[in-house]
Structures are given as C-alpha cells and as structure tokens.
C-alpha cells in the first residue's frame, strides 16, 4: 500500500506575479503524475491593482472531496500579502519565502517576522535566482516551483517538460526563462537547504497516470456540457464568478452554429434565453447574485408561459454586489422561492465538478421536457475549483431532444396548455402548421387565452406544480455515505459544502462516531421522502452551509420532525471539513 500523501500547498502573491499560473502549473503537473488534485484561487475583486492572490492546491494519492482548510506549505512570493495568509498555514507547516528581496523590509512587513516557532521557514533568494536565470525577477514563481520540486521529492525532469509544454505556444525566450528559473530554484534548494520536515510526494506506489484526465473547473464543465447538450444560444452579461462560462462559449459556440450575445444587462439576457426557448432552441444564461435578482421576473414568465429556460447562478457573497470574489451559498432562498406567485421551478445544486457537467446536461433536458425554468446553483468555489476528473460521459441521446411535440391529433384543435396526466402539454414550436397559440404571462386557459377565474387558476397552478414533482424521478437520488443504521449524527449538505461534509463524516467514523452523510442534487422539487427517512434514522441532524441564516436547514425543516443543528459560515471561503468534524464531535458528545 502506498503511503498516504495528502498535502495542501498555497502560493500567495500580488496580482501579476504569476501566483495563479504557478498554482495551475503545479496542479496540472501533479495530476499528470497520478495524484488527485483540487485547487482554487482567490484573487482581488478589483480588476486592476496589486491585490492579494492565493493559489490553493490540495494534492493527494487518495480520493478527495474538499479543498482542505490549512496549508502544509505556504509559498510567499510577496511578504506583505502572505503575512495575512500565515494564519492558514498549519502550526507545523513549511514557509518558503524570498530571503533576498530587492530591499530590506521593516519588521512588520517581513513575513519572517510573523512566523510562529513551530513553522519551518526556508528562505530562498527568489528574486536573485530569477534574475540570474532570466535577467528579470518575473520568474520568481518558477524558482519557487523548482524549490518545491527539490524539497518535496517531485520528479524535476518531468516537471520541466510540463513547463515547456505549458508555454509551448509562446516564444523561445519565454519558454527558456521559465524553465531556467525553475532549474535555478531546484538546484539552489538541493544545494543549500537541509530538509527538516519529512513532507514529501515521493511514494513508490504512485505512478504517472496513463489515463488522460481532464483538468477542469466547474465553469468549464458547465460550458462543455452546454455545448455537448446542443445549446444554440447563450446570452449573458459578464459577472464574477460566472463570466468564464460566457468566455468559453463565445469562443466555442459560433463555430458550431450557435450564438453568444452579450446583452446590455441581465434582464435582457434572460429575455433572449426565453425568446430562443420559445422558438424551440436550447438556450442558457449564467450569472451571479445581483444579476440573478434582476432575472427573477422574467424567470417567472418562463414558468408561467411554460418556456424552457436555464439560468446558471454561481453564488458569491451577497446581498447586492456583495463580495464578488468570495464564495457563499446564500442564494438558495431566491433560487427556490424567489418568484412572485407560486412559481414552481427546478433547482439543481451540483456538489462536484463532475456534477456541474452532469447537471447542466440534465438542466437543459429538464427545462425542455418540463417546459419551465431550471436554475443551476453553483458558487464561486465550485465555479473556480479545478479538479482532475475522468472525461465526462457525453449526454445520452434521450437527453438531447426532449421536447414533447404535438401529434397530428393534438394539432387538430391545438391546446398549448392542455391539462394532461403528467402536467406536460405538447409544445408546438412556432411555425408548426396548426400549432398556433397565444402565450402570455397572464394566467391562461388550455388554449393560452388570458383567464382570471378561480377554477382555471387552480387547475393551472396544480398543473405547473405537478409537472415539477414528476421531474423528481429523473433527477439522481440523494447520495449517501457513512453508517447505515444507529446513526448518531447525520450530516445533510448541499452544493459545494457536500464534499467537505462527506470527508468530515468519514473522519468522524474513524474517531468512532456513528455518522452518516447525505446530499441531494435537487433542491426543488425536494426529495422529501429520502430526506425524511434519513432524518428519522439519525439521532441528531446537522446541516452545514455557507450562509448565515441556514437557508437549506429552513427549507427542509417541515419534513424532518426534529431540531436541526445548523453550522453556518459566511467567511467567503469554502467550508472546511475540519470545522464540520469539530461540530460533529461537539454535538455527538
């Protein structure tokens, strides 16, 4: 059995110092060497300036589900920014810092001045070595990677090749300066540092992976799934953290006969999506909190007029413009309940990058089949966290064409909103001979004509409710892990917090606590039976989530018949599994 390797490396620097690219290169390379990776970056909200950036990578030879709370290694490319990152370094972690910066730092501006004694600090002349390697200090990030390779037993030759590959489209000078900086860092650390800590990636059991694994984040997975599901139109207004989806599609869609429109605002974006949906084309938009708020009314129109529409909402800290580059799960209420009237909709919350792909395919299918609004709830972390995954399976044919078109019999006297056993009415695409209909946001008859009588409103409300409930069968059931019976603490988590909860439960079991985990993909309609059953099996039910009021806990409260323990955080960071574990231990006592 290979020795367990599970390390978190953080690289911290100023925007423009190559912090994020160093993190990305490291993650990609470690993935190619057979490791599991999960990484994400934090960067300043302001587009210009020299704000703090952190590239966080968890690298393991085990399956991992969360990014890990504290770093084992912190690489400080910039002392001042990295000082505020030090509290996230483990008490016995390793600090790699520049011990030959361009000028002397005063005590409070020097990271070494803040280091606690248990931490091992390795000073490396990053500036000087980069200068020597490439005549400029820009390659400090590569020098740091070289030092990491030397200190932690990473195959330098293979790493070097991956850097060459990464910059292969750049000029020779760029490639050489990056590679030379890497080599300088590697050599210097080999010759000058006596390693104190045993941290290492060396393990006889680990082999470079032969299977090509995809390295993608949540946004990339969504964009890829949208293409694979045959969307024709993407309309959107740029907003962090969803912009990347539009960026990718604007490159990819036009060449495949699709259209990307950057609209003047989010209202217009959802308007475009509804227009395309009405015309029988698959369409989608992606936004974040402030844009999602603007879309609510037209979202209601999609529900009322029974037009397929998909909105990806990648949540960030709110309300209002809030915290653009921080993660949060606080749009659950608006996603599930944020409509006027009884606006039943489907809300899916993927928990992993793989599920971002699967749920996008599913969302486009469900929107088309159930003729309604489907909201996909991601968050900043899921959108940006990079995973190495096996290539996602393309959507089944069934998922690619789901419109229930009217048959000849239906078209004889066509009723667009015909009451059926399933709540789904045959939908004629404009231009279908005999398929003319009136479509409106007003309550309407089966023909689509405005009607305000109570009988019609009751029937139509019931129809819209019923079809959404029927959709539940087509959504994968909640996932479970951990104990199956005599459960002391059950953890019910959604979205990106599910990974941390799953790990916390596994750790709790190792500590002898009878714990179990469950996570539903569908937040609306709610898989009530499974949730109630799970809650009944647990002595204590814990719901961890990244919002302050406990939005999911409140959503399920009517179905669980017991007090729910809440764990809420609004730190702007993913929920650490360590914190969930502490809570499990606390309540299990």
């Amino acid at each position, binding site marked *: 059995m290979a020795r367990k390797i599970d390390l978190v490396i953080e690289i911290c620097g100023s925007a423009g110092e190559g912090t994020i690219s160093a993190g990305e290169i490291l993650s990609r390379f470690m993935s190619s060497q057979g490791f599991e990776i999960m990484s994400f970056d934090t960067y300043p909200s302001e587009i210009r300036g020299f704000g703090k950036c952190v590239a966080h990578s968890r690298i393991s030879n085990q399956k991992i589900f969360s990014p890990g709370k504290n770093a084992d290694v912190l690489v400080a490319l910039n002392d001042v920014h990295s000082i505020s990152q030090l509290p996230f370094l483990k008490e016995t972690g390793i600090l790699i810092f520049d011990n030959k910066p361009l*000028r002397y*730092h005063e005590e409070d501006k020097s990271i070494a*001045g803040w280091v606690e004694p248990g931490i*091992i600090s390795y*000073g490396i002349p990053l500036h000087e070595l980069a200068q020597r390697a490439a005549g400029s200090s820009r390659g400090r990030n590569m020098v740091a990677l070289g030092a990491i390779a030397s200190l932690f037993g990473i195959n330098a030759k293979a790493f070097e090749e991956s850097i060459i590959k990464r910059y292969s489209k750049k000029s020779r000078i760029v490639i050489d300066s990056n590679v030379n900086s890497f080599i300088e860092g590697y050599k210097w650390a080999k010759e000058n540092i*006596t390693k104190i800590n045993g941290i290492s990636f060396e393990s006889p059991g680990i082999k470079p992976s032969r299977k090509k694994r995809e390295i993608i984040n949540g946004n990339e997975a969504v964009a890829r799934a949208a293409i694979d599901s045959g969307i024709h139109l993407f309309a959107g207004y740029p907003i962090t953290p969803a912009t990347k989806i539009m960026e990718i599609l604007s490159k990819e869609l036009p060449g495949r006969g699709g259209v990307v429109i950057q609209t003047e605002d989010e209202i217009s974006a959802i308007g475009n999506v509804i227009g395309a949906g009405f015309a029988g084309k698959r369409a989608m938009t992606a936004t974040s909190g402030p844009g999602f708020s603007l879309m609510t009314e037209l979202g209601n129109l999609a529900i009322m007029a029974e037009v397929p529409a998909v909105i990806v909402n990648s949540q960030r800290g709110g309300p209002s413009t809030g915290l653009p580059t921080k993660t949060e799960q606080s749009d659950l209420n608006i996603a599930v309940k944020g409509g006027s009237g009884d606006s039943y909709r489907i809300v899916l919350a993927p928990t992993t990058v793989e599920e971002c792909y699967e749920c996008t395919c599913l969302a486009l299918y469900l929107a088309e089949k159930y003729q309604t609004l489907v909201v996909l709830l991601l968050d900043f972390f899921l959108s940006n966290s990079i995973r190495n995954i096996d290539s996602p399976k393309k959507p089944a044919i069934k998922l690619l064409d789901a419109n229930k078109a009217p048959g000849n019999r239906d078209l004889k006297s066509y009723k667009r909103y015909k009451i059926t056993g399933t709540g789904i009415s045959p939908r004629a695409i404009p231009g279908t001979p005999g398929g003319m209909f009136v479509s409106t946001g007003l309550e309407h008859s089966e023909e689509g004509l405005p009607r305000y009588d109570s009988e019609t409103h009751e029937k139509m409300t019931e129809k819209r409710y019923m079809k959404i409930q029927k959709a539940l069968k087509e959504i994968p059931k909640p996932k479970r892990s951990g104990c199956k019976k005599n459960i002391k603490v059950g953890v019910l988590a959604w979205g990106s917090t599910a990974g941390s909860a799953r790990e916390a439960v596994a750790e709790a079991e190792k500590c002898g606590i009878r714990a179990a985990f469950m996570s539903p993909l569908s937040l609306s309609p709610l898989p009530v039976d499974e949730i109630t059953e799970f809650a009944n099996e647990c002595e204590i039910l814990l719901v961890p989530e990244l919002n302050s009021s406990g939005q999911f806990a409140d959503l399920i409260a009517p179905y669980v018949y017991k007090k729910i323990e809440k764990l809420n955080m609004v730190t702007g960071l993913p929920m650490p599994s360590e914190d969930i574990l502490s809570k499990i231990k606390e309540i299990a006592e």
Partner: protein
Amino acid sequence: MPKKDHYVIIGNGPAGNKAADVLRENDRNARITILSDEHFSFYYRHKLCDFMSGVIDEDTLKVKFYKEYKEKNIRLRLGQRVEKIDPDSKTLFLKHMEKLRYTKLILAVGSAPRVLPSLLRYKDYFTFMSNYNDAANVKSMLENIKNPIVIGGDLIGINFIKMLSRLKKKATFFMYYKSFWPFDLDIKKADAIRLSLEKNNIKTISGDPVKTISRRDADYIIETESGREIEGDALFSFMGRIPNIQFIKGSGIDTERGILVNEYLQANYKDIYACGDCAQIYNLELKDYWISIGWENSILQGEVAAYNLLGEHRIIKPMSKKIFNVEGIKVKTSWWNQLKT
C-alpha cells in the same frame, strides 16, 4: 505614553533563555524577542550524543516547548540569522533582509567548534557535532559508518567517541592532549585517559599528531607525524569551542576572542550586553578578560545581564573551580560542569 521597550536577545541557548525569563519576570510590558539561526527549539546540547544514538527522542532533548514562550509572551523567532548590528541606530539586519529595531540588546550567541590552526586547511573534510542540525546529520550517517576517526582535544569529543564505541563502531581517536580543552592535560593524565578509552575498544593515538589528510574514494586517510597511516570512513573534529562573534566584527562593538564586556556584562554600548559562551568578561581582580564556556555559567550570566539591563549593577564573578572525573582522572575547571544526561 512612552514607547514600549523592545528587548532583543540573539541566541536561544541557556544564556538567552535565562535572560528572557528574568526580563519578563521584571518587566511585564516590554516586547521581548529571542532570535536564533537554529530551527530547533531550546535544547540540551550535552544530550545530543544520546539523541544521536537513539537513547532519547526529540522531546526529551528539548529544554523548553514553544508554548512556554507563548505563555510568557516572549516572541521566539527560529531559523533567523542576524547578519549585522548597527548599534547607533539600534537596528539588527537579518539575513533574510529584515530590519529589526531594539531598544536594548543581549548577545547570547554562544560558541562554535574550534579548529586547530594546523588543521584549518582540512576544515571541509571535518564533520562537526555542535548543534541539533549536526546531530541530525550524524544520526543519519551513523548506520553506514564502520570505522570513524575522531580528532579530539575536548570533553565533547571523548563523550562522542564513547558513544561510537557503544554502537560497536571501530573508532580511532587522535588525542591532542597538549591543546586539550577546557583544561590542560599533562602526559600522565593523557596516558591514563588513553588506557581507559582503549579498555572500551577505542584505538587511541596520543602524542602523534596529524600531518596530512587526504581522500581515497569516500574514505579519509590520515598520515601522522610519525608516518603512521590511518583510514576511516568518517572524520570528526572536536577541538574545543570559540565564541561565535564573526558577524559582530566591524559593528563597532568591541571584540577580541569574544565580545568584550565589563564586570556588569555590558559592552562598549550602554544598551548592549553579552553573556554565555560568547562573552569575554573583565575580571576586576585579574585585571584581565576571561571567557568561560559551559552550561551553568551561561545561565548565571544570562541572569546577571538581564538584571543589569533593567538597571541593576550586579557584578559577575567567575565560578569557583570544580573537580570532576574524566575517565577516572580528576580534573579541575571553573567553566564546565558535569551535566546529567
């Protein structure tokens, strides 16, 4: 409100730690920082042999754990070397390019292994065993060493070679009795020690100094003055200790063999004190300076330096001579103490 004092102590050994404790006990408010270029916390140097041979673990080696510094609000900064001192601006220049300001400074920088001038050109061949890092290094070498050579003229070396012999290494000891440290040996005493070591299966060469050292593959070949050739797979040197003051030279602080301080342990700058192995102290009676290297001396001096820094006028007196036993021989020294391992 007057600005808080910042007492900085360079050196995390017995002298520096005692000084820091006294400062904290008598000044609740001041900032106190201890700097050390070693990564490992305060430890018993005399237990390093036991650590290397696996008799004790890392925790037993430690005198103090990090949390004790925290509890006393003493900032411990490990792995950070002071490269330069500017007494006029009261600034320390650290190797990693940081400027650290102090209001009062205690130099407790200890000592380093001495190399005999005649062997200086072979310095790079020697493995030293002076601090935790060295010990960790030797510990990792031990498994592969079969016939080590120890060039020795001090008590630490004698302990070291006995440890090698306990580990069944075929060791050779070159005894430099004429320049033995920390006390003189005459030929009679040297012979007695040699016999005692040989009883422990340690080949001991006394009175036939090294002439040349050369390398043959991974091995070291020593040719002695009398023409003998000794081969070994590791080469250690133990020739006593000298104050660690290289980095202080040129700063304006007076030094000779050590840092020159008066009977109050005060250097030629009023806010700078020195104590422990690095101090060269003026003796009122002898009207000369003396250096004393040894654990308990260092503690005593650390205490006196701290009280004087706080405004007292305690005079340091050389410790009284003690007699102790080296391989059955009674020796007298006022510095060294026979410490329990």
